């Protein structure tokens, strides 16, 4: 035994960054399963393609930066980014859209900033937002969910899906407006009438397929909370803020209403955002108090963009990116009170410490 100088503590908890990321990957499985059920094999192809390209880009950049490739791939963070891109982009979207998204996320939004832990913006959301602005048509063409397909018709077969993705073969009646689009374009109908008129609502909470997708992501999120991968502060405050906003402006379901709280909680990317995007520790505020503010602000912004924004039906990506910008600002005002101090110190307060 060599007498090495090893710094304390000499014992470590079992938690590892790789394990955290793997748990996040597992937690996306219910959501992926639900998406696949409702939209077909295209979702899986998305996720697979995005994961492979993300990991490949990560490995390439690590090679370029002359870092040990396997050591960095082992933290699985690129895999998580890939999966998040895969579930965010519409199923059966062209392959180059996925590859571009992976490139933007890993190379531009993450590695150019210094890699893992140094990116100020959520990589998957940067990719999503950039592509949404650049290719609005491709990025909003979601396929018709299973319950709305004519009787007897199934989702696309693998061959047809690959044909669509890689060769851009057009398919009739393939896409349809999402519930958020319908809600946004609604003018003159009360919510009750709207729900009755539009088949997509299927008479329930938030439209065919999507409500179940959100519930599946919620289940994954609860699993991560249970595993203590993150604290409740950011996701719960985001959902709470969204609910409060929706309740405040529900307007008893009149034609001016933007939908009920339950509609907002279960439509679009709400649950995916709450448990898989907002909880990204790298780009969020650091203290628990800060994360409450951060999550709540995102919740409010999502509602604002969904209801009063002019062009985009969903606002999770933009809301998250805007708050990524703001998180250092939030950190400044939300430093916790340290033991032995009367009040929290601001992050730039450099008055000398007591008694030294």
């Amino acid at each position, binding site marked *: *035994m060599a*007498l*090495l*100088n*090893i*710094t*304390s*503590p*000499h*014992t*470590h*908890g079992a*938690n*590892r*960054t790789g*394990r*955290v990321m793997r748990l996040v990957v597992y937690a996306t499985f219910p959501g992926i399963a639900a998406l696949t059920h409702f939209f077909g094999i295209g979702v899986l192809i998305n996720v697979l393609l995005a994961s492979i390209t993300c990991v490949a880009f990560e490995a390439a950049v690590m090679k370029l930066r002359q870092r040990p490739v396997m*050591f960095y791939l082992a*933290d699985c*963070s690129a895999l998580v980014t890939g999966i998040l891109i895969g579930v965010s982009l519409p199923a059966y979207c062209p392959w180059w859209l996925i590859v571009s998204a992976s490139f933007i996320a890993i190379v531009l939004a993450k590695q150019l900033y210094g*890699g*893992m*832990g*140094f990116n100020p913006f959520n990589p998957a959301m940067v990719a999503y937002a950039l592509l949404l602005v650049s290719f609005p048509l491709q990025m909003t063409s979601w396929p018709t969910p299973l319950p709305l397909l004519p009787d007897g018709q199934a989702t696309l077969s693998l061959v047809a899906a690959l044909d669509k993705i890689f060769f851009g073969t057009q398919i009739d009646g393939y896409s349809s407006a999402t519930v958020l689009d319908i809600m946004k374009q609604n003018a003159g109908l009360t919510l009750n009438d709207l729900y009755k008129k539009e088949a997509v609502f299927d008479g329930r909470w938030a439209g065919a397929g999507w409500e179940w997708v959100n519930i599946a992501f919620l289940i994954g999120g609860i699993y991560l909370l249970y595993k203590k991968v*993150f*604290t409740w502060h950011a996701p719960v405050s985001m959902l709470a803020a969204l609910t409060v906003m929706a309740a405040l402006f529900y307007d008893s379901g009149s034609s001016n209403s933007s939908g009920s709280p339950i509609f907002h909680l279960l439509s679009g990317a709400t649950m995916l955002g709450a448990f898989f995007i907002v909880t990204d*520790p*790298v780009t*969020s505020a*650091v*203290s*628990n108090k800060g*994360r409450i503010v951060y999550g709540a602000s995102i919740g409010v912004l999502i509602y604002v963009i969904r209801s009063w924004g002019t062009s985009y039906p969903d606002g999770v990506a933009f809301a998250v990116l805007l708050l990524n910008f703001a998180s250092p600002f939030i*950190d400044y005002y939300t*430093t*916790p*009170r*340290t*033991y*032995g*101090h*009367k009040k929290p*110190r*601001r*992050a*730039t*307060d*450099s008055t*000398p*410490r*007591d*008694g*030294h």
Partner: protein
Amino acid sequence: MSSLIRVWNIPGGVHPPENKKQSLQLPLGEIPLPPVLVIPLNQHLGTPSQAVVQVGDNVLAGQLIGAADGTFSVNTHASTSGTVIAIEECAIPHPSGIAAESIVIQPDGLHAWIEKEECADFRALDRLDLLDKIRAAGIAGLGGAGFPTAVKLAPKSTQIIDTLILNGAECEPYITADDMLMQVRANELIAGTLLLSHILHYPEKLLIGVEDNKPKAIAALKMAIASASVTDPEAKKIQVVSFPTKYPSGGAKQIIQILTGRETPSGHHSADIGVICVNVATAVAAWRAVRYGEPMISRVTTIVGEALQTQRNIDVLFGTPISYVLEQHGFDKNRASRVVMGGPMMGFTLLDLDAPVIKTTNCILAPSKQELPAPPPAQACIRCGMCADVCPASLLPQQLFWYAQAEDFDRLEAHNLFDCIECGACSYVCPSTIPLVQYYRAAKGSIRQNELEKEKADRSRQRFEFRQARIAKEEAEKEAKRLLRQKAAEEAKQKLADKAASLSALPQVSQTVPDVVSAAVAKVSSVQVSTDEQKTKLERMVNAAKVTLEFSQKPLVPNKTNPVISEEQLVKQQVRIKQAELKLAEAEKKLADFIATQPVQNPTDAKPIEAAQATSVTPEIIVAAKTATAEVTATIEDPMAAAIARAKARKKAAAIPDKSDEEKRAEQIKALQSRLQKARERLAQAEAENDPNIEAFRLGITKLEERLNEIQNSIGLQTG
């Protein structure tokens, strides 16, 4: 004796595997005397003690061998009887692995004690006497920091102590030394608590805080309190408070918060909030020091780890080499991953196993490679915030880490780096296994270093400023003096001229004071001589300046001593040329000024009255002249009389030659010749060395020659 105390929760904390069972299987043991004892003079927090024995001295167990150096220091005692064989630098258990002055004792095997002064009733003694006994016994905190106990037990008069806490939390994994001590020495601990309570003027609350994972210790303490209460009602006040096991509840600040809900203000001592917190083993040692007059020479230490055959607690003498302790417990060097003094959370690795057991050695941990494997490489921080969740001081470790990496010391201070107690909870939970505490320690060290350097720089800056101010002041004083002198000279000149004028105007009066007239004439003529001299002097100055300028303008030629002309030298030459030019300009200006003023100031042939009229243009001088002439009440009207008076005076002066003049001059000539000789030698040397001041030397010689000639001429004149 049920606990009436509210147990508060502390923020953060972790639950590492306790690993306390393995060292509690065997009873408290002892090991044979080692072949040598190495007793460091600094086993505590504060100034090292000073050795009071010499090599070759025979010492007894408990004999003072190192005397405390000041108040914030602790006595050191011989742990057994034997001979001092060396006083030298030896390895000590320290995170840095440094060596420190230690007294090496070869035991004689008798373990003979010094005479002990017992004390049956401590309440009969004065508090100060009790503190003296504790101080004399060399008691320092046994919990880990080694704070001098006598200092801790003497709070300021403004600090009213209402709570005494005996810290038996022992939250570090593996360590069971305090647990064992509380089990086997519960009675002594209760007695010690009463002693400390007495010293601290009977605080309201006497609390023994124990984590709830030590049921045996809690039971033993409760029994001891019950039996002590029979004879001493004060013992009923003592409460044993058990609280949930959570690391780091045994930190002084933490246990105070758990038992009182109060927080020690940042940068203050707990006495400021009315709490004194003492480790249980320290209380026992204090009790033994007072009751039996026993200096502290041993302690209970946990010897634990899978690399050992025997894991247990032992009562071990200070100075016992750790290698010897390990050897006695079947240490397998090949199995061990490291040897740690202290627990796995805050202990440090030993770099030299010959380092001895000291007062702060609460545990020696020799884990196997499976037990505590080498730390995995650190990954990037993902700011997950788990560290912040477990921080007992509610810091933001992830931010501290960020700023520590960036060495942004202002931000570190703003994030209260110095409130970090280095408990290691953040590193423990870090999923990227970043050695966070190490970053904080390094940052603290750098900040302290910077502060020291800043202090130093401030001091030298101050010194420099003071010096500048002093020089400026001196210059100003000199200048003021010079001006005063100039003014005084002018006034004197003026007065003299006035007087001369007035005297010459009144010949009848001047006859009554012939000496005054002659003196005045002599002075005037001397002024005339000196003006001539001044002129030549100025001319010489101009010449010298010219020569210096020429010299300095000479191109620099590489020579033997100076083969390469550096940039610096060129710059210096430029400076020299500039200076020489300035000097020349100054000298020329002076000369020109002098020549310009000459006809006025040097009335060689003019009569004094004219000089007076020419110069007395200012009203003051007129007033002065008037007062000078007031007593004679006459007006100046005959300039010729002045000339007569002057001629008379000159005659008079010439008629009084000095008798001994000749010898004096001979002496002067001799002195001048020797000086000249020396100057020539110096010049020769200067020429050889190519000295820049060579021209000054030449000038000096010329002057000396001139002077010599002058004197010789005057002798010639007189004799001729």
